[in-house]
């Protein structure tokens, strides 16, 4: 189990006292999920602006969480950037995050995706849609339910929600809007031979190579990136609305470099960082920054999503969904 919050804090504190204080506090350790290019750019810029040396660990949200958990008794990370909001909610609930309500520009963030108390900040986001191979699909579908049409039988992938946080966001988001009736969509998917295929990239790859035609709940920035390279692929956002999957950043309570961590969060919310986000084909977290090479938030029809419900029902939905599609 995860142990009680109290115990975790105690050990963390004890560990903190046990170590000699840093002499010149010029280091920071960041654990960050995907896209690598963006993370590298952000960190390089931050390092040159602040003079702080940043150690990074890059991995999927799952790997980062596992590592955090494993290091619990003697934490290493100061800041984490995840690709899944419920995970950040979880961290907060466990009391592992450090509140930083004074963060600069925090007020300009999308309210739904960030913690009002300043425990996490969604500095970027991706939208989920239907990615399709332009050589195989000439008239793209316009609705989620189109994917249940017989012409697409056995041609569609959906990422595995147990491996992909964004796919889980899509499923729980859809259900939080439609209620239990929402399951009928997924049942019809099952009937049409929709295949659950690994994490996001693994679901998308067969569509690029033409083995499958479409991905339901595809992460848009990955699709944009492939499209920019020239691969025969594109994405549509169904008209009944879709889910945004925010990418929260948080400071860990156990940090020994609190000032540096705060500086890093400030940087992530700065104009130049948000510009880098939008360059990477992600949605900027700040409402006042517009994306230039992709659909903006305003252009994407959205479902009514209840993040609290979604966070609470994640694992239950995952179980039910994976059993259904197996």
């Amino acid at each position, binding site marked *: *189990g*995860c142990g009680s919050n109290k115990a975790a804090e105690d050990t963390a504190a004890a*560990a903190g006292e*046990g170590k000699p204080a840093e002499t010149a506090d010029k280091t920071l*350790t*960041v654990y960050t999920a*995907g*896209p*690598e*290019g963006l993370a590298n750019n952000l960190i390089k810029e931050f390092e040159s602006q602040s003079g702080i040396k940043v*150690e*990074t*660990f*890059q*991995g*999927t*949200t*799952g*790997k980062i*969480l*596992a590592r*955090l*958990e*494993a*290091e619990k*008794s*003697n934490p*290493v990370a100061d800041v984490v950037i995840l690709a*899944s909001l*419920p*995970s950040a909610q*979880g961290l907060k609930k466990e009391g592992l995050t450090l509140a930083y309500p004074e963060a600069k520009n925090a007020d300009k963030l999308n309210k739904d995706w960030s913690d009002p108390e300043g425990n996490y900040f969604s500095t970027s986001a991706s939208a989920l849609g239907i990615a399709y*191979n332009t050589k195989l699909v000439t008239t793209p579908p316009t609705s989620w339910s189109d994917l249940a049409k017989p012409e697409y039988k056995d041609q569609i992938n959906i990422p*595995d929600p*147990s*491996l992909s*946080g964004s796919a*889980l966001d899509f499923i729980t988001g859809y259900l939080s809007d439609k209620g239990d009736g929402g399951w009928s969509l997924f049942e019809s998917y099952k009937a049409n031979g929709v295949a659950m*295929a*690994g*994490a996001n*990239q*693994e679901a*998308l*790859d*067969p569509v*690029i*190579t*033409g*083995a*499958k035609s479409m991905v339901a709940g595809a992460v848009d920035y*990955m699709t944009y*990136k492939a499209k920019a390279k*020239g*691969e*025969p*692929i594109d994405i549509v956002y169904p008209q009944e609305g879709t889910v945004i999957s925010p990418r929260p950043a948080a400071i860990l309570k156990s940090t020994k470099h609190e000032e540096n961590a705060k500086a890093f969060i400030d940087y992530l919310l700065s104009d130049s960082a948000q510009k880098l986000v939008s360059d990477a084909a992600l949605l900027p977290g700040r409402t006042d920054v517009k994306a230039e090479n992709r659909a903006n938030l305003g252009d994407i029809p959205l479902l009514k999503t209840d993040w609290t419900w979604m966070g609470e029902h*994640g*694992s239950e939905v*995952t179980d039910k969904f994976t059993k259904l599609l197996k």
Partner: protein
Amino acid sequence: MMVVLLSSIWLGVCVILGTTVIALPLAWVMVNTRFGRWRWLEIVFLIPFMTPPYIGSMGWILFMQKNGYLEQLAPGLSGLGGAFFSFGGMVAIMSLHLYPFLYLLLRGALERIGGNMEEAAAVMGAPFTYRFRRVIAPLLLSAFGMGAMLIFVKTIAEFGTPVTFGKRIGYEVMTSEIHKYISSWPIDFGKATSLSSVLLASCLLVWYVQSVVNRKYTFGLVGGKGVRRSSMRGTGWLQWVAGIYVVLLLVVSIGIPYFSVVAASTMKLRGIGLAWNNFTLDFYKELLRWNSPSMKALMNSLWLSLAASTIALILGTWFAVAIGRSKTRGQRTIDLLSLLPNTVPGIVFVVGLILLWNSPWMPVPLYNTYGMVILTYVVLFVPYTVQYVKSAFTQIDPKLFQAGQVFGAKPVYVFRRVLLPLIVPGMLAGWMMTFTIASRELVGSLLILPPSMQTSATYIYAQFEQGQVSLGMAMAVISVGLTTLLLVLLEAAGSKRKWAAP
């Protein structure tokens, strides 16, 4: 859960069968025909094992899937794809990946069985199959038992193929279940550990059976009389059959997946497929730039695995010699302990290591250093060297050591002059194995590498995660190529051995 466990076990059993079917004839061919003289083939047959399992599966998937390379090359054969995406296909992929493991052990043992045991049977009128059943098979059993056990353990603790391929055909195994608890919110090590302990239990059972078989079927095969090998073996048509087999195996185990991998690594756009104007070497140029992250990752991998496999070799040899024929309870305990790290999925084990080495009371600040990585590798891979060395060691007639003692050699001297040279082939095989696995080890590295550090495996994995499939594939080709080159050089340097067995 019972069902998933049974699926895991069933997969393990089928992969043992699969690897046996591939490795046994190969070992026979390499010992008894002139192909055995081409030592470099030995290394080439290791290539499937050097290939990270998920790359291998990807290669197969890319080849067999709809609109895949097979269909692009020979549209008529597209029907094969359907049959391939099945449990049988999964077993085939995993067997083709793991067979080198068993092959090296069996080859060593076959060489030690030497000529005269089989010759005697032939003169007594036993046809090949009978000879095989009554003489070769029982004498191989101890080495086979060790190999099969490792294969089983590796299969049911394997994660790469079940995730890339198993998911696709809806075949769930324990590792994917365990992985869920360890990689998505809420992280629950407790559950993962308890599930792992189920795997552990089944592995223990297999170990037990194996150790019983081993105790009963280990014989001193390297004796004190020079054994001549018949020059009759493998003549005429047999050479041809053997040749065809070797070529076929090379095509299937290396040719097909590497066709896909190389093709994917040289495509400008993967959506276009096989076409000359889609060909590019840019990815390789990018990777091979001096001081690029990829080069650093490559070098990291290289020296980490060199260090780890060498340490594992030393430890493993020591263990193997201490275990001996597992006559005493103590020896059996060491035997079991040396295997344990392998019986649980790597990720669970690695988490355990982190919990241990990162705990506040640990006096050695190893965590987040290279030392930790090497330590992890060593602990993960020591079982392989132990089994390889043990297999070589237990088949040496104790009289050879006794003779050393009688002539006044102290134990250390006997060890150095008699034991060591006799087990060197086993050690070398073990080292090659560990070096190979270490150079592509992913699961452990992902979690345990200090921040800001990559190995070629994590680099490749990151490229896949980033959608840079071509770059990842190119990196796989480069790192496997480098490993192969290194092993070939090593083999060339070490192949001066003139004596026959073991």
